[in-house]
């Protein structure tokens, strides 16, 4: 059985007038490293070339292949039963985290932090604590370049997402007055999305979860901090959860425990992370590395 993944990347033609962004996207789509994790990567060129367009493409494929396709998207969005189904799959994280927290800290966490794009990792970790009213659940959305710039994906945190129906489900979408979806932006491709899982939107509406946003700039600063202090490389998406957790931790007493869901590993996306950090030494290193291979090639 094969798995296909719809990447939110564009492959554009080899024209000389290719823009800087277009060139970068094209290169990212060709990254052979990703093929170790997938059997097939389908490149989506439609629309804004973000997560929503990959979801549209997956739904279109499913409308044809529904006899044999049952797990369409990794996120908790789309038509019923996908939000419920994916939440159930992801809930193992929350169940294990709760159990391990009781073993390691002998108490439940005061707060649980998770980033929210479509919301699969948040749904998964929150699922372990929904029946523990004393545990506060905090989702962190993409604040992008800042709310004032309009370039973000803060649908719930900024209360700008309005109820709508698209991609087969109803939730709060970033849309204009006529219901056309608006462009979103985030340094993290997985959070760069117009909607949010309908179950999460409901939990937000009834006040069970709190939702904040972290900007690209905050994410990059926190990422550096976490790499240096903890020796781990969270994915850019997960780093959003770290931002809000680290911002709020000083409000808590020393005996309180918090749980941060590191939903993705950044080492898998090291090129993306290194580029986002804008480290000139990384570029120099890569140039030297390629030069080494070129020299080896010339010798053999």
């Amino acid at each position, binding site marked *: 059985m094969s798995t296909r993944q719809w990447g939110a990347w564009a492959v554009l033609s080899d024209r000389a007038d290719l823009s800087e962004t277009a060139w970068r996207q094209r290169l990212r789509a060709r990254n052979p490293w990703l093929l170790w994790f997938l059997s097939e990567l389908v490149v989506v060129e439609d*629309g804004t070339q973000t997560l929503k367009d990959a979801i549209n493409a997956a739904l*279109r494929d499913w*409308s044809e292949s529904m006899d044999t396709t049952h797990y369409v998207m990794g996120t908790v969005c789309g038509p019923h039963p996908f939000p419920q189904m994916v939440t159930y799959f992801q809930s193992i994280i929350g169940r294990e985290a709760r159990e391990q927290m009781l073993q390691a800290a002998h108490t439940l966490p005061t707060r649980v932090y998770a980033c929210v794009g479509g919301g699969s990792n948040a749904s998964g970790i929150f699922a372990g604590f929904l029946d523990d009213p004393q545990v506060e659940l905090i989702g962190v959305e993409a604040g992008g370049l800042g709310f004032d710039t309009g370039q973000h994906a803060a649908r719930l945190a900024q209360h700008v997402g309005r109820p*709508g129906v*698209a991609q*087969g489900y109803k939730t709060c979408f970033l*849309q204009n007055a*006529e*219901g056309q979806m608006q462009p979103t932006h985030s340094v993290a491709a997985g959070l760069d999305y117009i909607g949010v899982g309908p179950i999460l939107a409901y939990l937000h509406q009834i006040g069970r979860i709190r939702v904040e946003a972290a900007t690209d700039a905050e994410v990059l600063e926190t990422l550096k901090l976490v790499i240096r202090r903890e020796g781990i490389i969270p994915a850019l998406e997960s780093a959003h959860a770290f931002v809000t957790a680290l911002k709020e931790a000083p409000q808590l007493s020393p005996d309180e425990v918090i749980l941060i869901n590191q939903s993705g590993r950044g080492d898998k996306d090291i090129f993306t992370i290194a580029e986002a950090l804008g480290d000139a030494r990384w570029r120099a290193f890569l140039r030297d590395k390629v030069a080494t291979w070129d020299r080896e090639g010339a010798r053999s």
Partner: protein
Amino acid sequence: MTPLETYLRQRLQRKKLLLMTHAVVGYPSLDANMAMLEAMQRAEVDVVELQLPFSEPIADGPVFVRANQQALQAGMNWERYFQFMQRVSSAFDMKILMMGYYNSVLQMGHETFCACLAEHGGSGFIVADLPPEEAGELFQHAATHHLSPIALMTPTNSMPRLQEIARHARGLVYCVARKGVTGKQTPLDDRLEAFIARCRRATSLPLALGFGLRTGADLRRLHGLADMGVLGTILLTTWEQGGAAQYELLLQDLRAATIA
């Protein structure tokens, strides 16, 4: 019986097969849309779907996806859409259906949408992503304004499901000949005949068959099987690749197949 059904039954008395066509409003331009509709009028098209562009058209294939995006980029909005519908309904005989996605209707408001559609000369609507059990209020307003909400039946629907869909259907039923999005070819085989037969058992409304029809020859195979053939993607690709002249030829080929 809604005005649309009455109209279709009258047309069926003198034609072997009715014809429904499609245009994405605003793509490639409103002027081009007008020229398309003039060609449709000459081909005695019975019903036209005017698609209101949407940013996430999940039921559409690549040709219409691009058309939706470009129409929106060029500034298509509700006001321009309904102005255009008004022009079409004043100038031509064919009945007009709004085709689009539910979010446009939801944001406009069910009542406003139906009132606006009726006021600008629409006869009904095809909302591709709205299941009938979610459409109660919209369908009530449609009835008030004598509009036909068009139901879709597909080969994956069970018989009880087809009957449930039929319960809500007005005007005509759109039989989607296969799974998947718009714009791919459909083999017209025995399974199709069995599917149409199932739809006939579920409803007494006229049956329109769509998804993948391309030529007059395709339409002739529907004689005695369906009441109406629906063509969309092939028309737009013909316009894009062959211009107005090829578009006219295709429509005349289709027209001939509606008579004999």
